[in-house]
């Protein structure tokens, strides 16, 4: 138990250090826009298909199951579409998108940086006066900060549209009944976007920390990659809960 707590403390301190250095180099360092654009392509564009497919299926499952229960309990599914949109905007969209991106992008970042560490490329960067956090983490941080909210918006839209297909095909809902924005508020969208921005800042930092901590050879890179997925996923879920709680308190006040 003590070993586990010590490990958790070391991980938290290490991640906080990488975050601090990233923010420091955002203020002090140079930014190569070309590298940021390359990372935006890698993190954003190359994740679009993955996000569309996973969020599409999850949206379809959500609407199917909710409609099934609604039909059984109330004999009516007309509110399923309008009522699911706030849930998707506020909760499921950013969280599921964050988890998917943590899996795809987090592993990529950890493996790339980890293999650079074990092959001494990170040492070569330092010897060339390029700081690893400035050179490797900052562009990914910027890219992720922009692209994860964008992917979340795409994910929410896809999930809702997939739900529309299921709702009309299986439950014969009128599309105009389903496509009703009456139950969604601006605060739902703001909460969802806030979560996506926080996930966008968190995932690359956690993954990069795991990569920078890689030791040994390919085994070390594998361990760093696993660590990145575990830590990023835990962070997404914990932050989702935390931000959701804060939003609830703010709205109640």
């Amino acid at each position, binding site marked *: 138990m003590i070993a586990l707590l010590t490990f958790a403390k070391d991980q938290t301190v290490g991640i906080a250090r990488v975050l601090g250095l990233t923010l420091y180099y955002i203020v002090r360092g140079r930014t190569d826009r070309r590298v940021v654009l390359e990372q935006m392509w890698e993190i954003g564009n190359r994740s679009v298909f993955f996000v569309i497919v996973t969020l599409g299926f999850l949206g379809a499952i959500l609407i199917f199951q909710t409609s099934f229960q609604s039909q059984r309990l109330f004999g009516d599914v007309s509110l399923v579409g309008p009522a699911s949109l706030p849930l998707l905007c506020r909760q499921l969209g950013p969280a599921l998108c964050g988890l998917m991106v943590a899996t795809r992008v987090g592993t990529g970042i950890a493996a790339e940086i980890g293999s650079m560490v074990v092959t*001494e490329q990170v040492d070569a*960067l330092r010897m060339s006066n390029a700081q690893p956090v400035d050179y490797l983490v900052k562009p990914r941080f910027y890219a992720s900060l922009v692209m994860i909210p964008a992917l979340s918006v795409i994910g929410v839209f896809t999930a809702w549209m997939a739900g529309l297909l299921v709702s009309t095909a299986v439950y014969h809902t009128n599309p105009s009944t389903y496509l009703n924005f009456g139950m969604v508020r601006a605060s739902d969208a703001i909460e969802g976007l806030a979560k996506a921005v926080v996930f966008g800042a968190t995932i690359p930092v956690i993954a990069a920390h795991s990569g920078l901590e890689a030791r040994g050879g390919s085994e070390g890179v594998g361990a760093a990659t696993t660590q990145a997925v575990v830590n990023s996923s835990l962070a997404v879920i914990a932050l989702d809960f935390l931000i959701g709680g804060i939003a609830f308190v703010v709205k109640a006040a």
Partner: protein
Amino acid sequence: MIRVEGVHKSFGGVPVLSDVSFEVPTGGTLALVGPGGAGKSLLLKLICGLLKPDAGRVFIDDAEVSALGETALMPIRGRIGMIFQNYALFDYMNVGANVGFPLAQLGTVSSSEVRERVARRLADVNLPNIEHLMPRELSGGMKKRVCLARATIHEPPIMLCDDPTAGLDPVSTNRIFRLLKRLQQDNGATALIVSHEVEYLRPLCDQVVMISRGRVVHRGGWDARANDEAAQFLSGEGVA
């Protein structure tokens, strides 16, 4: 000048270097030899500040490298050219970008001058017109020479070479040592070379330091005392 004073370094409670001291005068060349796992590569990383010693001090000229942070180390590292044991070429950059990287990072050299100097340096290491190739397209010997070109592109006054001929055939080994000698003589650089190739190091280096089990067992000229561990190693008989 490089000075190492009483350096100790442990990992997980296991001592790797114990009380290591030696000095390389400005413009001097020192061979660092010893059996595998003796701590030679670790010592190079301590000298350039990539790692910190647990005890002891490391100086480059008047600067105490072991006491400086990353930012303060930047101007010192700008004066060091380092050849890594495993090439450490950036695998996502082509050869031209790799070799020009230290110059580009300085931010004081125009991109056209970087390109010119890269072409010149690649010609110096007998690899002209390969700027467009990626590291994965090169042989081991070519990678080492690209690494040598990158380490010397900014004409550093200090060179640290970590086993520059590891895993190379005798022809490539000979070529690398001849290049090293020529580049070191051209720049008048202070050089510290880690290698097992004692016969190649002998004409290249003024002094030799031998490390075994983390301790200095010989420091000075190439004529180690008879019957001791260093004499055995330096004569090519190896160490038990």
